[in-house]
């Protein structure tokens, strides 16, 4: 009986980011294998953009300049759309036994979520790049410097992170993956009540404050200012503030949910 402890040794302590990199690798494989979701994340925003520029575009702005107006909004729509699948991935983990296996191992509790978040960031940045490439092909003519382009990708990445963390928390809260997927509609709807597709000033007066101060408007205006040299105002600060606030709330809420759901399925 004393030989027991000699034979079976405790698990070694992991290197600094071993768990995180393993979970990121796992989530990447998930992303790549879920071909349909990946296609949707890239194809749907592209189709929306073509629809807005070719079908609605001339009605909204007969001069043909609508493409320059709408692309920043489409970029955001695309970022949010791809992030909502994180809720499904997280919920699937939580409702199968696999989370209990991870939780009974000496791992930082958030590492598995980090994997989902980083994979979502990569997926959405890829989709964003495709959307911008297609936009350039159909006549989008930004006048941004390389530094401004970098800033655009920075703010888009921050927005993706915010929305992904929010959806990771929603995935923790949802009782089933199906329920989690239902919340995706919020992000398909919110951009329409913002300056993404039409200027806020053209909306009914009672709607304008909501449209003006909801997070998508300042993020859109920041991207627009960087790409098209429209007035920046305080959009950048509002955008960063919104993103940081969403991340903070989601992380705190998510950590609480993660603890509360322990061993209860």
């Amino acid at each position, binding site marked *: 009986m004393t030989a*027991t402890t000699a034979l079976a040794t405790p698990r070694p302590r992991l290197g600094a980011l071993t768990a995180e990199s393993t979970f990121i690798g796992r989530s990447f494989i998930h992303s790549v294998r879920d071909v349909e979701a990946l296609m949707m994340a890239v194809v749907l925003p592209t189709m929306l953009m073509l629809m807005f520029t070719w079908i609605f575009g001339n009605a909204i702005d007969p001069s043909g300049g609508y493409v320059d107006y709408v692309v920043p909004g489409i970029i955001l729509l695309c970022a949010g759309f791809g992030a909502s699948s994180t809720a499904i991935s997280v919920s699937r983990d939580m409702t199968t036994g696999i989370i*209990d296996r991870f939780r009974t191992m000496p791992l930082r509790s958030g590492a598995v979520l980090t994997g989902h978040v980083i994979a979502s960031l990569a997926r959405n940045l890829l989709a964003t790049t495709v959307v911008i490439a297609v936009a350039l092909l159909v006549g989008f003519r930004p006048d941004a410097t390389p530094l401004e382009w970098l800033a655009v990708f920075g703010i888009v990445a921050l927005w993706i992170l915010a929305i992904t963390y929010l959806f990771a928390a929603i995935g923790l809260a949802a009782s089933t993956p199906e329920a989690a997927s239902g919340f995706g509609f919020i992000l398909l709807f919110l951009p329409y009540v913002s300056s993404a597709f039409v200027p806020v000033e053209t909306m009914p007066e009672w709607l304008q404050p909501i449209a003006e101060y909801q997070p998508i408007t300042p993020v859109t205006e920041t991207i627009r200012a960087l790409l098209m040299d429209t007035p920046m105002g305080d959009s950048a600060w509002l955008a960063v503030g919104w993103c940081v606030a969403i991340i903070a709330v989601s992380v705190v809420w998510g950590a609480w949910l993660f603890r509360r759901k322990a061993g209860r399925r």
Partner: protein
Amino acid sequence: MNLAIEARGLRKRFGRTDVLTGLDLAVPAGTVFALLGANGAGKTTTINILTTLVQPDAGTARVAGYDVVADAEEVKRRISLTGQSAAVDEVLTGTENLVMMGRLSGLDRRAARARAAELLDRFGLADAAGRKLGTYSGGMRRRLDLSLSLVVDVPVLFLDEPTTGLDTRSRQELWSVIRSLAETGTTVFLTTQYLEEADRLADRIAVLHAGRVAAEGTADELKARIGGDVVELRDADGRLLLERPTDGSVHGLRAAIDELDRSAAASAVGVQVSIRRPSLDDVFLAITAGGGSAPTAADAASAPELIESK
């Protein structure tokens, strides 16, 4: 004695349900220990507390020498859990699942790959190594699930109803794996609702009833608690008609036979009487019927008739 698991007075309540009402356990290191109980008896809650997933409302538990609440991280370094629902990644292949678990257990990439191949081979899954788990059958999934717990040799292995839902063949394969693990010195703590499983695998058995351990011992000790043999009446096809437990005395045996003799079934053509040792079923039914108190031989002799309709 070197104890791998030690629990004292564990209590847990979910909402208005008292799941555990003062559970005590002592599992010697290097043994196979079965926690036997009906559905809802608190088996999974016990495992969840011992594996740090759930905190007890009262009481203490130590696993591999560490407190499950105060030293949860140290406990986690020394245990593996194969839970009730398959803890596998459906999207990854068999190899990828095992390599991931190896990396998370501190093996480097090369060692993780080697270990994955070794385990797939050992569990008869080598042919399915490159297939996604989504395409595995229930038995294959369960075997991979168990192999994920064995990526590194930990001192204490927890298996929550490991063979539920498996066919007879897969069940026996799993039993032989668990037995060979125990031979290498791993402490195995398993829950089961199958008495046969506890009888075949476990060195010691605890019967969980009404949130506490109602009886504990080796299979033979538990069977001895019920006292004497059981007299059975079977029809010409060997189907069990009636059975009566006895208290082991000559008088008790005669009384049981007389009672069966008076029953209508006894006079049918081809009916045969036989005497057998009590099974773990008898023990389990006697204990769980008695509201949690351990039965005495006298209780057993007057226990309600136990008719099985298999």
